[in-house]
């Protein structure tokens, strides 16, 4: 069983844990850079010299905590191995002086990246609005998980970003651990992510609305007709009770996509959804011969999915454990990768260390928790899993990247640059 931390962790409990490993990485890189700068370039040609330096450096290690000293040794050894490989690979092609310069530059970039990661926020959350953590979280939040006073407002903002980042927005709703979730939670308010089957069901609903809906009286507005589809028809193709769980939970699913059950058999838009959809042209008014107004559906792929996202964002206090872990993991990963993209050149040889699982698992879990605090995403961080097993899930997550996330990482890197320039101009 995966355990949830029993203690309510505070900001000053988690931040030091996040800092611990980063604060051990940076000195190693700085020290290595200092050593390389002062080393005669010709000596670099003899890789044994580097081995000896590393051994000497390791002797100076006086950390008492075993995990930390092990990590430092591993980290240092990775750094030196990468340097050695780089030298061996290019020593016959590039003058050794240039190789040295490259290594120093790459180290410089890496130290810079770690410096940003280390100063991403501060222990007292002083000047919070100016911290990188805050600004980056808000930047990503605006695109993927917008806040707002009501669903209408959130929906509008999400829709504005959909042309560029719809695939990311959809990705944020679809945890890979969906099979652990219940669609219908005993707690009615609990919102799970979208499983592939629920995604299919939502697709079917979208298509049935666009194809051939029925129309019925709009309960809250006289003389208006709203589109309705038969719940039965949505589940018609699912034989062998394969979508029983979804069928039983249709009321919950409907609520999450802005619909409701009418007369026990129809799926129809809720009153507020009608307003939102009308505003965005997903419903259009059509005057009938009897002067009544019929609302004709013209849904897009995003129409219901983004409603689910807006609903999730609005009720972020009631998200399921899987969804919270998934969302915060995405945010942590995007923040981390955005900073790296900004600071490291694409050819930087140390990129591999930053993306190494051993580094990731030391940084991302704590970053996830920090991102859940009220000033940032405001999610229930108590639901963040904190176990070995959970850390392994980070690896699955990283393996499941989609191209659109890479585009977003590029945007984050550009935004980091803007923040930096503004800070310099102050």
């Amino acid at each position: 069983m995966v355990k949830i931390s029993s203690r309510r962790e505070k900001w000053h409990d988690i931040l030091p844990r996040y800092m611990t490993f980063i604060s051990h990485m940076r000195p190693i890189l700085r020290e290595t850079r200092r050593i390389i700068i002062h080393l005669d370039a010709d000596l670099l040609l003899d890789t044994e010299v580097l081995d000896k330096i590393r051994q000497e450096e390791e002797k100076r290690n006086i950390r008492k905590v075993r995990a930390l000293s092990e990590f430092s040794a591993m980290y240092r050894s990775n750094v030196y191995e990468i340097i050695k490989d780089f030298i061996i690979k290019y020593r016959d092609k590039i003058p050794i002086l240039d190789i040295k310069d490259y290594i120093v530059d790459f180290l410089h970039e890496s130290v810079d990246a770690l410096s940003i990661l280390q100063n991403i926020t501060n222990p007292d959350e002083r000047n919070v609005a100016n911290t990188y953590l805050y600004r980056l979280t808000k930047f990503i939040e605006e695109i993927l998980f917008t806040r707002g006073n009501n669903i209408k407002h959130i929906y509008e903002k999400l829709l504005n970003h959909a042309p560029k980042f719809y695939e990311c927005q959809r990705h944020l709703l679809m945890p890979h651990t969906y099979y652990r979730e219940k669609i219908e939670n005993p707690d009615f308010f609990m919102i799970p992510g979208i499983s592939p089957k629920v995604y299919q069901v939502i697709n079917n609903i979208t298509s049935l609305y666009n194809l051939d809906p029925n129309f019925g009286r709009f309960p809250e507005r006289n003389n208006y007709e709203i589109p309705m589809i038969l719940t039965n028809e949505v589940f018609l193709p699912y034989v062998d009770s394969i979508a029983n769980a979804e069928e039983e939970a249709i009321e919950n699913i409907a609520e999450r996509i802005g619909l409701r059950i009418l007369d026990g058999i129809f799926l129809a838009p809720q009153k507020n959804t009608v307003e939102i959809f009308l505003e965005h042209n997903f419903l259009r008014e059509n005057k009938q011969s009897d002067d009544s107004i019929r609302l004709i559906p013209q849904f897009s792929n995003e129409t219901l999915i983004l409603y689910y996202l807006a609903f999730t964002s609005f009720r972020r206090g009631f998200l399921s454990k899987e969804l919270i872990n998934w969302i915060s993991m995405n945010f942590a990963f995007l923040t981390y990768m955005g900073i790296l993209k900004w600071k490291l050149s694409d050819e930087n040889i140390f990129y591999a260390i930053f993306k190494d699982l051993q580094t990731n698992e030391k940084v991302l879990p704590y970053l996830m928790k920090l991102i859940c605090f009220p000033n940032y995403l405001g999610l229930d961080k108590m639901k963040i899993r904190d176990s070995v097993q959970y850390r392994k899930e980070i690896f699955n997550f990283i393996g499941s990247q989609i191209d659109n996330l890479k585009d977003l990482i590029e945007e984050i890197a550009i935004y980091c640059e803007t923040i930096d320039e503004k800070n310099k101009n102050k």
Partner: protein
Amino acid sequence: MIENQDRTWKELLQEFIKGIDKAVDELEKRDVDNIPGAKQALLQRLNNMKLHFPTNEGEIFIRSINDKIQNAFFPDTQDFTEAFEKILKSRTHEQDFIINELLNGFVTSKAKAIALGTQGPIIDRMVEAFSKRNDFHIVDHQFFAMFGDPNKPRSYIKKQLEELVNMFGLISKEFVVEKDKRTSERKVYTFYTFPDEILKILEEKYIIIDDELGHAYVSEEFDRTVFICMFLANVAINRDDLEKIGGPYTVNGICAIFALVLLLSFMPKLSVDETNPILRDPTFNEQNMSVIPKSWMMKQVLEPLFEPLIKVVAYRLGGGLWYSKIIDSEINKKIHTQIRFLLRDVNKWVLGQLVRVEIPIFIEIANIFTEITIGTNSQE
């Protein structure tokens, strides 16, 4: 035998033509399209199909399925490497959606899909496990350490790994340590990697081989779809061994998705009035998307078209064996109605209109249709 085959093929073509007739009848009765002329365009297209599909023993089908669909997603070869190379070559951002859909099997309402839900994330594990070593191998012990659950027996993840190794056609090598440093016992490590010929194909774009250091790194491009391509290649070369590829479910699933690809390719492009809001919608890109009629999606129209089309695809892909596995039941008719909503990212809704993203496979099949239609007309 050949005579028999020809007879079956002819019957299938006739069945499809009958299906078109029924679809046309149904279409005449109703109109769900709201773009002026959409229904007429579809009717005309169906009538054209009826006229031209039987030409040259069903040349349109033969070329579309044999040359285009098979080449891109399901190569007709016994050679795993060749099959993999062809599928990999057909990758584009949008065609990846089709490749991924093929893994999910079919919308099957049946529980047994090609890959179970829980295997999806395990493919991601494979990607990550390969990414984390510089020799493009994964080692069983490393895999357990990365993904094993301390609360579950190791056999659990071992079984998952073995299933995936078979599914993707990976090869294994054993490395024996006579005396393990910690336990002083003999230890056997199993390394898994891609067959050499596959590695050659992956070189440069997906794997960067560093001859000097003897390292093999995965590039940014290496992702889960590479594995799915391997899986498809594996199914393609083993198509005659139903047991090996998951039985009738796989056959029905794959044929249904390809039938949808065919149908979508044959749909006529509609020209929309310049005042139509779809043209101002930021998600609609006139350069690579076309509005197509949505009436074909009506259950009444789709059913008579889809059933014979799936059989046509099955016969072309797997001959009599596959054809005999197409389940012709009321239940399956229900399932077929679901398939119309698949391939959602290339067959998408924009403001209530159905939009086809013009990916290479659609364009190529549509070109065959146009070429044969024009050829026949000019001969006349």
